[in-house]
């Protein structure tokens, strides 16, 4: 089976993290975002994944060789020379997605994190026999998104309504599709929107069905949602593979610690914390609702909450980091410093307090 992951562009909403790495390679729960999706695809028998990208292909390709070898799955890139929208990349990658077997292929949006019930989706797709299946997820405020109006029992999609002013439904496009190869005949090789052009065509022909996504769903393309997404992910991990979470007297709630990370004495870690490879958390540190990325060091007595500490950064002794502080790669916060929502670009030293949210270039 084949799959296409729409990686797209610059990831500007996840800056400053995406100033150091392209978005799919930014770590989430201690592994590159895109690896979560590639692993889920491999688990249902996908043997080739095509990444539709238009930014920094060289950086991506280096990492991908590594994943290819470790996961034993073929990974290729389809490079857009101009932005092709949400459907155009499928046409661009046509030759890679059609292998003559007639099997459907997956399309995933790279910003999305969820439980990936892909096996259930394959069953659903076979059962209804339509041309295309789409995952939808229930949200509280549907008018922020594109709402999928569907028949509740069969899941047959009637139409898409973009940001509806009046309530038409509470299910939105979750960015996970399973499509028959015939869908590619309906997509021209030009910038196209799958929601505005392709899916409405298929829905009109009664061929599009929607499955409600069980479990959590989050678009982690920006820091606030990244932090919420980690909470949802770790919650789900607690239910499915609790052994992966760390336990101990110094742990509260769901905490994921890489085996190469070191944690000192007298710390209190959690809830909803991820500590990446090679990190050092010295003694007396309090961490809650935060991500500490590869190679970072949190010095003694520091306190970090609701923040992201970028690769190889350091947080000084007695420092207090809170309220959506995002430290880019190689940022060093001095001892005793307080930062409240500082967004700091890579390779900086913070030697004075940041009292209210500000961007430090």
């Amino acid at each position, binding site marked *: 089976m084949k799959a296409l992951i729409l990686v797209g562009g*610059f990831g*500007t909403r996840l*800056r*400053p993290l995406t100033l150091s790495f392209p978005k799919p390679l930014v770590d989430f729960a201690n592994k590159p975002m895109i690896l979560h999706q590639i692993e889920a695809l491999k688990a249902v028998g996908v043997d080739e994944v095509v990444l539709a990208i238009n930014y920094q292909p060289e950086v991506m390709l280096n990492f991908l060789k590594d994943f290819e070898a470790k996961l034993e799955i073929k990974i290729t890139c389809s490079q857009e020379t101009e932005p092709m929208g949400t459907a155009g990349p499928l046409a661009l990658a046509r030759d890679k997605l059609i292998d003559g077997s007639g099997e459907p292929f997956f399309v995933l949006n790279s910003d999305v994190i969820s439980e990936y019930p892909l096996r259930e989706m394959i069953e659903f797709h076979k059962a209804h026999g339509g041309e295309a299946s789409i995952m939808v997820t229930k949200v509280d405020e549907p008018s922020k998104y594109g709402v999928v109006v569907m028949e509740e029992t069969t899941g047959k999609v009637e139409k898409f309504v973009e940001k509806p002013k009046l309530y038409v439904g509470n299910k939105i496009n979750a960015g996970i599709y399973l499509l028959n190869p015939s869908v590619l005949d309906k997509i021209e090789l030009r910038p196209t929107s799958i929601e505005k052009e392709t899916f409405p065509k298929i829905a009109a022909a009664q061929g599009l069905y929607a499955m409600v996504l069980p479990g959590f769903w989050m678009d982690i393309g920006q820091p606030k949602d990244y932090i919420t997404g980690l909470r949802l992910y770790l919650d789900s991990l607690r239910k499915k593979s609790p052994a992966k979470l760390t336990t101990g007297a110094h742990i509260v709630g769901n905490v994921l610690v890489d085996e190469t990370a070191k944690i000192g004495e007298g710390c209190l870690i959690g809830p909803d914390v991820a500590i990446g490879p090679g990190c050092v958390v010295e003694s007396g540190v309090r961490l809650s609702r935060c991500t500490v990325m590869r190679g970072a060091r949190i010095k003694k007595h520091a306190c970090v909450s609701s923040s992201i500490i970028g690769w190889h950064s350091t947080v000084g002794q007695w420092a207090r980091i809170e309220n959506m502080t995002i430290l880019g790669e190689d940022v060093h916060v001095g001892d005793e410093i307080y930062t409240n929502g500082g967004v700091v*670009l890579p*390779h*900086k030293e913070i030697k004075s307090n940041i009292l209210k949210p500000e*961007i430090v*270039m």
Partner: protein
Amino acid sequence: MVSSMDEKVVAVIMVGGPTKGTRFRPLSLNIPKPLFPIAGQPMVHHPISACKRIPNLAQIYLVGFYEEREFALYVSAISNELKVPVRYLREDKPHGSAGGLYHFRNLIMEDDPSHIFLLNCDVCCSFPLPEMLEAHRKYGGIGTLLVIKVSPESASQFGELVADPVTNELLHYTEKPETFVSDRINCGVYVFTPDIFTAIRDVSSQTKDTATLRRVSSVEALQPATRNSTDFVRLDQDILSPLAGKKQLYTYETMDFWEQIKSPGMSLRCSELYLSQFRLTSPQVLASGDGTKSAIVTGDVFIHPSAKVHPTAKIGPNVSISANARVGPGVRLISCIILDDVEIMENAVVTNAIVGWKSSIGRWSRVQAEGVYNSKLGVTILGDSVAVEDEVVVTSSIVLPNKTLNVSVQDEIIL
């Protein structure tokens, strides 16, 4: 006897590195700061072409922390263009401003120069190098510093010094003092005799018990042998301060302009200074026009020959337009730097801004700021490939590369 006409001179320009000078962001996110265009030429071009005026210049070295490949193209192009050998030398680790000079002394001394100029790349001034050399020869010391008088309030940001009004000897030097010492400051342009290497060596050996005198080959110097602080020698605190008042160092005062290009806003100010200097030294470089065959030009303006500017546009004063930029009908540009491949559409206005490579400015849109060069949002900066849509107003803001603005913004940094 070797006459002064046969004596060779070598110039060393310190260009810094990527993790230093983060103050120049976002302009330095995608290009090394020394290569950022000021008045139509890369920043480092201005000191390099000033060095060309030194009689018997044998070699120019650029010394910094950037990867070699970032300077490879530039260095070979400028060597060809100016017909003087320019070479980039990469420092393996920080040696301090004097330590860096010492680290490469073998290469510097290869041509057996009688004098060595040391310049900082981000200094903007008239570089009176031949005059400095002549003054230095008369003084007979081991070094001469370029100095300038500034306002007493601003002096504390720099190295303040006191010079003898008759002999011009450097009597006292102190870096960024808290209390007022003097309104004469160090411009960051120096000329030395090779004795400077002895002075630097003496400073570093003083910090170690055993003063072993070996000429370390440049290969050995690159080995990470003993990491000790003797490798790190700062020019200001470790050489200039101690040697002041010992009849070794002298000063040469410039009455022209002087600025440091530390922040993006200052690059606009320095562009203005260099453009007005072109008006005196090479006016043919500047643009002119009256709206008939080409656009109306007022004040000092540089337009790259490959740029296309509509005749109904009005450009200037203090505008630099780089290669392949396209300026549409009815556009007004005042005090700005327009980089390569930018497209500015009809009737747009850009004032007190720097527009990054490949950006596009929509019809009737307005990109503006107050023009306070040293303040964080005093000049609006658009990074590479920023799209400002029609009729949008961008005021006093910094926009990082690859963003599209479809609503007006003010006083914001947009990541």
